[in-house]
Every structure is written in structure tokens, then in C-alpha cells.
């Protein structure tokens, strides 16, 4: 997780306010690859420019990694000053990137032929792609449920479909069924494990739905970050004290992925 200057290979709009950026990390070598090759669910902490405005880095999840070319793919939505400025960067420009940071999704316990459910809402969807790829490579059965606001801000659907079953919902019904990603869950199906990324409301609903069942599940959280490495205590999430007696964890260094049972949302 040394910071490096990545070369921008691609940076283009793929949907309403959604951009894909690909950067090449030429610093990966045999020695550091254990640290430098990203795991699904980890994130990069990106410096917007070399001035002090904006001051802080921006966390963006890994969407996919091309290990042959050391290409890091990320999808981001323009929200404010930071993501807008990143969207204006041109191919060939350098990007100051710190990472991969955080702990990714636990996939060690996903068994061959086991069944897994992925639930993604909006800009929470990208990290699920890299996860799905890894799970499929492990021969896990993966069903993906994706929720968008509307057709024009939807993305990655074909790519997910190419990797296995994928169902889609949108709030206005312009693509897939009308409704939230939760309405895509069929009560007839059963899964060993789920992985969910999306707005807090969605994650809360999932906690409620499955809290009393035996299902195993993980959620990836977002919080405003300072250091990104565990030092500033800015990105705290409360955890069930019966699971961790400290009563809190750090999203940046203990997460961003947590067992869905431990966090208090």
C-alpha cells in the first residue's frame, strides 16, 4: 500500500455522472505484489491534484484488476469538487494513488458449488464486479441483484450478465423491474453467503431482513475519511459490543467490509 503515481490509461463517461478510470500501476514487482495487488472490496485513496484544495484524498473502490497489465479499473460518480476534477483528467496524466487500502471481502469461506448472492445499489455496484469474477473463478454459484435509479445512470449490467445470473431493478422501472434491489430477492432461493454494497438505507433493510436467519453476509460501508489508514479515528462505525468489546471499528483499516451482523448502522 505504498502510494504510487499511476498513468491514466482511460477516463471516460459511461453513464449519467458515472465514469470509468483505468490506471496503470508500474510499481508492482515481485517483492511488493502481495501488498500491491488489490483484493475485491479494497479501495484506493486518490489525491485529486497537487494543490491543497481539495486537501484530502478520495476513496474509490477497485472495480476490476487486470493482472497482466497491472491495470486498475475504478468506476466513480461525480459528486462534488473531487470527483469532478478527477473526471477532467486526460489520458497520459499521472494520478497519485495510495493503496490498495482496507480489508476486502472475505471469500475464503465461499465454497466450490456453494451459492452466493451479491446485492448492489447505485454507485455501490462496482466492487461487486471484481468480487464476482473471483467467486466465479472459484466455481461458486453467484446470483447478482443490481439496483439503479433509472436507465440512464445504469452501468456494468452486460458485464455482470456475462459472468452469470444477474437481475436488475430501477426506481422508475425504466430498466428491469420497478423498485429496489431488495424486491429482486426471491423467497424461493437460498444462499450460503451474501455480499452487499450500497446506500445505508439498503444495508439497514438487509440487516433487518436477515438478521434473525442463519445466513452469512458481508456489507461494505462508506464513511468520510481523513487518513485512510487507521490513524485519525475519523471513519468510525459502531459495532455490537458483544461481538467486539471495543464497540467500534474503523471503516478504512478494519473495513470497509464488515460482517453484516457486527455493525450498527
Amino acid at each position, binding site marked *: 500500500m505504498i*502510494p504510487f503515481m499511476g498513468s491514466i490509461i482511460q477516463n471516460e463517461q459511461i453513464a449519467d455522472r458515472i465514469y470509468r478510470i483505468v490506471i496503470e500501476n508500474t510499481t508492482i514487482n515481485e517483492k511488493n505484489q502481495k501488498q500491491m495487488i488489490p483484493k475485491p472490496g479494497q479501495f484506493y485513496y486518490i489525491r485529486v491534484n497537487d494543490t491543497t484544495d481539495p*486537501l484530502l484524498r478520495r476513496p474509490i473502490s477497485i472495480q476490476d484488476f487486470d493482472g497482466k497489465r497491472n491495470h486498475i479499473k475504478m468506476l466513480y460518480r461525480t459528486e462534488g469538487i473531487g470527483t469532478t476534477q478527477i473526471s477532467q483528467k486526460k489520458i497520459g496524466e499521472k494520478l497519485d494513488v495510495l493503496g490498495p487500502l482496507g480489508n476486502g471481502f472475505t471469500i475464503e469461506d465461499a465454497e466450490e458449488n456453494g451459492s452466493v448472492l451479491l446485492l448492489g445499489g447505485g454507485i455501490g455496484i462496482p466492487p461487486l464486479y471484481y468480487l464476482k469474477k473471483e467467486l466465479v473463478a472459484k466455481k461458486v454459484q453467484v446470483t447478482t441483484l443490481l439496483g439503479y435509479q433509472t436507465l440512464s445512470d445504469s452501468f456494468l449490467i452486460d458485464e455482470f450478465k456475462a459472468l452469470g445470473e444477474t437481475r436488475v431493478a430501477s426506481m422508475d422501472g425504466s430498466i428491469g423491474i420497478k423498485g429496489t434491489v431488495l424486491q429482486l430477492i426471491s423467497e424461493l432461493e437460498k444462499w450460503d453467503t451474501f455480499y452487499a454494497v450500497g446506500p445505508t438505507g439498503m444495508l439497514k433493510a438487509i440487516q433487518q431482513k436477515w438478521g434473525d436467519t442463519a445466513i452469512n453476509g458481508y456489507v461494505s460501508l462508506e464513511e468520510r*475519511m481523513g487518513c485512510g489508514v487507521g490513524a485519525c479515528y475519523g471513519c468510525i462505525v459502531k459495532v455490537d459490543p458483544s461481538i467486539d468489546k471495543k464497540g467500534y471499528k474503523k471503516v478504512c483499516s478494519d473495513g470497509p467490509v464488515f460482517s453484516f451482523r457486527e455493525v450498527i448502522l
Partner: protein
Amino acid sequence: MSHRLQVKFGDITLKNPIMPASGCFGFGRDYAKFYDLSQLGAVVVKATTLEERIGNPTPRLAETPSGMLNAIGLQNPGVEAVINEEIPWLTQFDVPIIVNVAGSMTEDYIEVAERISAVKDVAMIELNISCPNVKQGGIAFGTDKKVAHELTKAVKKASQVPVYVKLSPNVTDIVEMAEAVAEAGADGLSMINTLLGMRFDLRTRKPILANQTGGLSGPAIKPVALRMIYEVSKRVALPIIGMGGITTAEDVAEFFLAGASAVAVGTANFVDPYVMPKIIQDLERVLDEMGVKSITELTGKGWS
């Protein structure tokens, strides 16, 4: 290794004047993954209180132009855990340890100071009378000169190691505050803590921080820090650890000109985890450019 960067505080010698600002470096573990902490002049750990503190609800951070607001609320595992788990871990590095001490009541401060200063490896106490983010104590101690005087006196009596008092910039007259703690026996000053600030979210129409207000740090506050250090160092004969927005070796030189004898780097660590080793390396070049043999020559050279 050259001794150009060496600075002395009484009996304590720092190999260079660069240390982290309290609260911006945890207890050192996170940045030890990036580099060997023995490179630093000292390590200043997070504010330590008598009991464990869970801090404020999130969001605890907000960004501002060239700065950031924090309202962590002194989250820390309490003095017991710091003594048993954090300090022993830090002793693996060849670096003086400075513990930032906070509390809500004078008695708390005294007890923490007593216990922490009795630990062999603690070189110094930084008395935090300026935390803006807690309901009780904190900044209240740092904005009333009588209260600050009394607290300093009590902690000084309880402590076996030198006591540096960390001043709040949120006062009308910083010199008066510095004089009050100097008279109470402070061995030195740390300045400045954060300025009180605030941001609003246009979508929710509410303050961004759950705590509403927070402490402003980063380059934005550098000119305020320099001014206060200048004013105080001209009037109060105590060594000053300067901080507030330091990002480069040039910034360090500026703080020395203003009157600092060492500096702490806070927010800049978040932007670049290697910023302190980089500054230490760059400092030699800056001293060359300024035609200065030892950095100690620069302290207060900007007075006029």
C-alpha cells in the same frame, strides 16, 4: 549522520525537530507500516484520558478549502491501555515518546499525568487544554487564563517529566494565556491546536459534522499559527513546538523564524503518509539554501 537538525529540550535531545501532531498519528502503529518511526524527532501520541472514550458520533470529518474539520472527541482506549499496550509497543523504536494528556476535570488530568509520567519511556507530557470537541473540559481549560494556570500548576506537580502546554488559538489574547501557563511552571508550549469551525451540507441543510462544530486544521490555519507563535515567542521565554498546516520543509523553516524550536505535522500525514520522512530529508537542502549550519540558529530569526 549530521547533527544539523538536532534540537534539545532540556535533557531531551531530538535527532531532528519533526514529530507528528497529537491525534493525527494514532499511537504510531498505522504509520509504522510505511516507515521506521526511529527516523522521527519524537512521537506524539493521541490524547489520552483517564477512562476509555468512544468519542463523537459520525460524520466526524469535513473538508474545507486547504483545511479540514474534525470532531473526533478524544476517542482513546484510556490511560491503562495506553500504558500497557501502546507505550511498550512504541519502545521498539529509538525515538522519544510524548504523551498528549486530556481530561474533563482537574483530577483526571492529574491522575493521568501521574501515571503516564511514571512510565520509564515517556519523555514528556503535552497538556491538552485546547480540545474543541468535547462537551466538558477541553477547550474550557484553554480559554480562561486562571483555569489554565491552575491546571498547569497541578499537572506540573503531578508529573515526573517536563510538561508542555498545548494552547488553543480560539482566544482574544494568546500571549496572556502563554504567560499564565508559563508562570504556573510549564516547561514549554505547543501551539496551535485547531480553530473552531463549521460546515453545512446543502442537501440535508444541517451541519456536516454530527457534533456541529469541529476543529479546523491544515494549511488554511498556517498564517494564524505563525502569528501566534511569533507573538508568544517574543514575550514568553519558553521553547515552543509549533504546528498548524505544516506540509513542507520550507514551512518548517517559517515556523522556526516565527519562534518555534521544533514542529509537529498533523493533517499533512493524511495527504501523504511519507510526509515527515520527506520533510526531514528536505530540511538539509533548505538549510543549505538559507546558508544555515544548524536549524537551531533559525529559531526567532524572523523577529523584528
